[in-house]
């Protein structure tokens, strides 16, 4: 009788993550809050590094970011980018924009509108790759305000950034 030796290695080859500590709304991590003005430059929120050794490797990326907007009229938009490599030196592989608008005047100021943005992205390496690959999660703002409606946009947490490498046939 022959022996059957079965090896199922699966396909999740590597996994990396970065989160705030604590990863909550209004986190007291020193990485937040991040305040935005109409002239804010692109800011790096997180970076994670995975091993990509095999050809036909897919990278599955997830992000979740919490922010608030306090404005009466103008919407506040944040664009989240994922770069393979450093911003503007590497390759932009994903970008999405989310917007919040509104706020309510109270006796002590305005109650903001909170927004949670989550996204899924993929990257793919067709050929063998012998280096580690670093992904950067960044944010830029698109804000309009005037003296009658000053805008307050703050990234307050959570920040979650995950990557898993998967070998596809």
């Amino acid at each position, binding site marked *: 009788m022959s022996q059957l*030796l079965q090896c199922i290695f699966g396909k999740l080859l590597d996994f990396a993550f970065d989160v705030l500590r604590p990863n909550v709304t209004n986190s007291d991590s020193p990485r937040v809050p991040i305040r935005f003005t109409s002239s804010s430059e692109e800011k790096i929120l997180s970076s994670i590094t995975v091993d990509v050794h095999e050809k036909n490797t897919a990278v599955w990326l997830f992000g979740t970011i919490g922010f608030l907007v306090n404005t009466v009229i103008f919407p506040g938009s944040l664009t989240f980018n994922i770069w393979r490599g450093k911003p503007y030196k590497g390759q932009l592989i994903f970008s999405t924009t989310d*917007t919040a*608008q509104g706020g309510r005047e109270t006796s002590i100021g305005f109650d903001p509108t909170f927004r949670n943005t989550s996204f*899924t*992205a993929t990257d793919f390496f067709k050929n063998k790759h012998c280096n580690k690959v670093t992904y950067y999660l960044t944010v830029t703002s698109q804000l309009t305000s005037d003296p009658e409606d000053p805008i307050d946009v703050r990234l307050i947490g959570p920040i979650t950034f995950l990557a898993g490498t998967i070998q596809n*046939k």
Partner: protein
Amino acid sequence: MSLQFDFDKLRNFAYDTLKPNISDSTDSRVPIHLTSTTGEKLLSTITLPLENQKAAVWLSATIGFRVNSPVPSQPPSAMRFRIWRGQPDTGTLVYSTTDSGQGGDSFGSVSRTTNLNHIDIIKTPCKSVTYTLTVEAFDIVSISIIGPITFTAAEIEL
């Protein structure tokens, strides 16, 4: 006699994205302009190979859209995202969710991002399964799907 090593449970992975997968992508699949009369529009289709007769399929999607309301005081614009196992109408509806946006015009464009996650349990001995992601707008003036569009499926052994 059998000696078996199982190292993890992720068996297969399939995905579809725009190229480039960004807001206001230049991919010819976008923009998709939606009104109350455009009906259900296909966003993406993926086929996942299956190794197991019983498996959980982890479905995830991200869609970027822009609200084109003439005035921000108009009612919110809503649309429903659906995931069908198979094709719309002839397949099985396994997931749906509704998201809205409001505002726009001279006060600035309103771009939104919707993210979906779902687990579909497969119990039939098929070699593959196809999922279709669609969108249908209702009670709106105008919405445009502008990108990104990401649609992924992962087979998880149960």
